[in-house]
């Protein structure tokens, strides 16, 4: 078992760190102030190859794999959790096309997504079905050579800025009366596609979250991903194997940044004649943060390694997501407390990390659902 990175992986990390420090860091204050998503940064992600990191070379990607992807997201998220989050969403959006799309869909969209010409996301959650993907009510009715989709998706990252969205919809009922769910590739130019209400979050400013409204949206039948009834499989494979690790890597960035800022402050802030890092109370918090970062990294890297080997990894990714996101909340709080009163002033990053970490918890499955997945797997023995 090797625990070190290859020289190429170190280069990938360095490239992401430079991109984040030079291209994103100077814009963080602006994003915190305006809360606007910076489209030019998203395009620059494509120009530097970060959007195609898991896409094969034949589709314009670099094929560097999922571990490389997590390294890149962590470095970006360390500077801006919001940008790390968007970087991971864009790969989530491409995943269903790569795994279930037709050759035509792949050729049409994947190279453009890799370049950052436009962006993709996955639209599953509804008011009636988030943790329960079977509970959605959006319908897709077959009419000749197309489907007509009607419904409303909520909490969709990129709802108004992503031109390509994988949408789950009910196409029928099975013999037991349960929803049969299918997945469709829906694009902005289709009649009835409408970005709905924008949500105003408490953090991750610079991301875009809102509703997708489908008002009798006409989708060609050839845009069905997989076959009818594959909808949950399509969506959950993307969310569990690409979305959750991406969110976990965003959490790694938050923990790393919280630790970095805490160490700096603890070495500089003098109280009672000594830097506060000399006091055990502070040392214990920093030790916990360092430990959480190591443990979260190992869980994330293990899941990514499995994905790169072609192994099933949904349970491992759920564990990584659960641990890393919960740890990010703890680390951000520790950072704020180490800073004392300063920790909750907007001038300092601790309060931003805390607000950003909170939104990772319910994203792509709550901590409770992650425990359900891990628990069920453990009980099977």
């Amino acid at each position, binding site marked *: 078992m090797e625990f070190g990175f290859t*020289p*190429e992986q*170190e*280069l*990938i990390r*360095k*490239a992401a760190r*430079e*991109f984040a420090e*030079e*291209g994103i860091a100077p814009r963080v204050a602006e994003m915190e102030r305006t809360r606007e998503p910076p489209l030019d940064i998203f395009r620059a992600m494509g*120009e*530097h*190859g*970060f959007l*195609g*990191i898991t896409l094969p*070379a034949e589709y314009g990607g*670099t*094929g*560097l794999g999922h571990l*490389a992807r997590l390294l*890149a997201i962590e470095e970006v998220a360390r500077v801006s959790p919001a940008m790390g989050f968007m970087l991971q969403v864009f790969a989530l959006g491409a995943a269903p096309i790569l795994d279930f799309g037709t050759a035509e869909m792949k050729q049409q969209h994947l190279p453009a997504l890799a370049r950052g010409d436009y962006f993709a996301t996955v639209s599953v959650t509804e008011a009636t079905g988030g943790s329960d993907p079977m509970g959605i009510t959006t319908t897709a009715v077959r009419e000749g050579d197309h489907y007509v989709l009607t419904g409303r998706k909520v909490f969709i990252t990129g709802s108004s800025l992503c031109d390509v969205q994988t949408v789950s919809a009910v196409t029928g009922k099975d013999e037991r009366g349960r929803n049969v769910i299918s997945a469709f590739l829906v694009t902005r130019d289709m009649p009835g596609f409408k970005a709905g209400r924008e949500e105003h979050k408490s953090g991750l400013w610079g991301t875009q979250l809102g509703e997708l409204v489908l008002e009798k949206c006409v989708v060609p039948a050839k845009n069905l991903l997989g076959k009818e009834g594959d909808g949950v499989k399509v969506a959950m494979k993307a969310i569990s194997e690409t979305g959750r690790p991406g969110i976990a890597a965003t959490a790694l960035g938050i923990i790393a940044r919280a630790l970095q800022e805490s160490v700096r402050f603890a070495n500089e802030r003098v109280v009672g004649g000594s830097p506060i890092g000399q006091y055990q109370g502070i040392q214990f918090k920093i030790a916990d943060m360092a430990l959480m970062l190591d443990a979260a990294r190992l869980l994330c890297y293990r899941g990514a390694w499995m994905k790169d080997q072609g192994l099933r990894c949904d349970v491992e990714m759920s564990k990584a997501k659960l641990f890393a996101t919960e740890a990010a909340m703890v680390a951000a709080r520790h950072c704020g407390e180490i800073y004392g009163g300063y920790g909750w002033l907007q001038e300092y990053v601790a309060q931003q990390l805390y607000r950003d970490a909170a939104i990772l918890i319910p994203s792509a499955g709550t901590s409770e659902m992650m425990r359900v997945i891990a628990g069920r797997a453990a009980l099977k023995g």
Partner: protein
Amino acid sequence: METVVCVKPVPDPKQWSKISLDPATKVLRREGVETILNPLDRHALEAALQIRQSQGGRVRVVSMAPPFATEVLRETLALGADEALLLSDRAFAGGDTLATAYVLAAGIHRWGMPELILCGAESVDGSTGQVGPQLAHLLGFAHLSYVCGLEEVSPERIVARWQVEEGYARVEVRLPAVLTLTREVNRPRGMSLMGVVQARGKPLTVWSLAELGVDANLCGLCGSPTQMGDMWMPESGRRQEMLQGEPEEVVQALLQRLRELAVLPGQ
């Protein structure tokens, strides 16, 4: 146009506070300090890549450094260089700028002479700015140091902006030449992941003293006409005066001191 860029791995300036000096052995302790490509060399590489874009040809990168410098050279390949060469041997250790220039000149000569050699104006650690001009002399090239702009580039000549105290002078340099560049010359491109993948197939060669075939007495500490005399960490402090008392008393005392120091008028 064939261009060679000389690069140096240096301790990351952002982490210099971690570096300490052993006062007894005069050895710098730099555990945990990352090594990076000398920042001004990045500008030199960028200039070479832009010249390749307009003039064609190749960009090769050379460094005289310990074995760990392969990481930095790999980075230059990912940034777009076509080929890299590391000159590394214990015999090269401790060399001053002349010994370094001697090894680099020998390496470049053996590797294949270019029309143009670009260097960063100075390294962040040594800051001598001497290797470029010494290299030019050893190779019989023209040279211009502290170039802050490249106005015209052709296979025969370069018109450059040469940084002077109050601005710049416009200078024409005939090739072959060595130019050392300042940060004003360009804005280096970032590393892309496409570049990282392309770097896989690019040659990275390592030559030792034996492969280079140079005189060991002209390399490293042996070949250095300058030797380090002493090294110490300078202490810097400020004069301090503490004024005690109630706020009103302290204010009056402060005003009086500022008048005594002629910062404020009056007595």
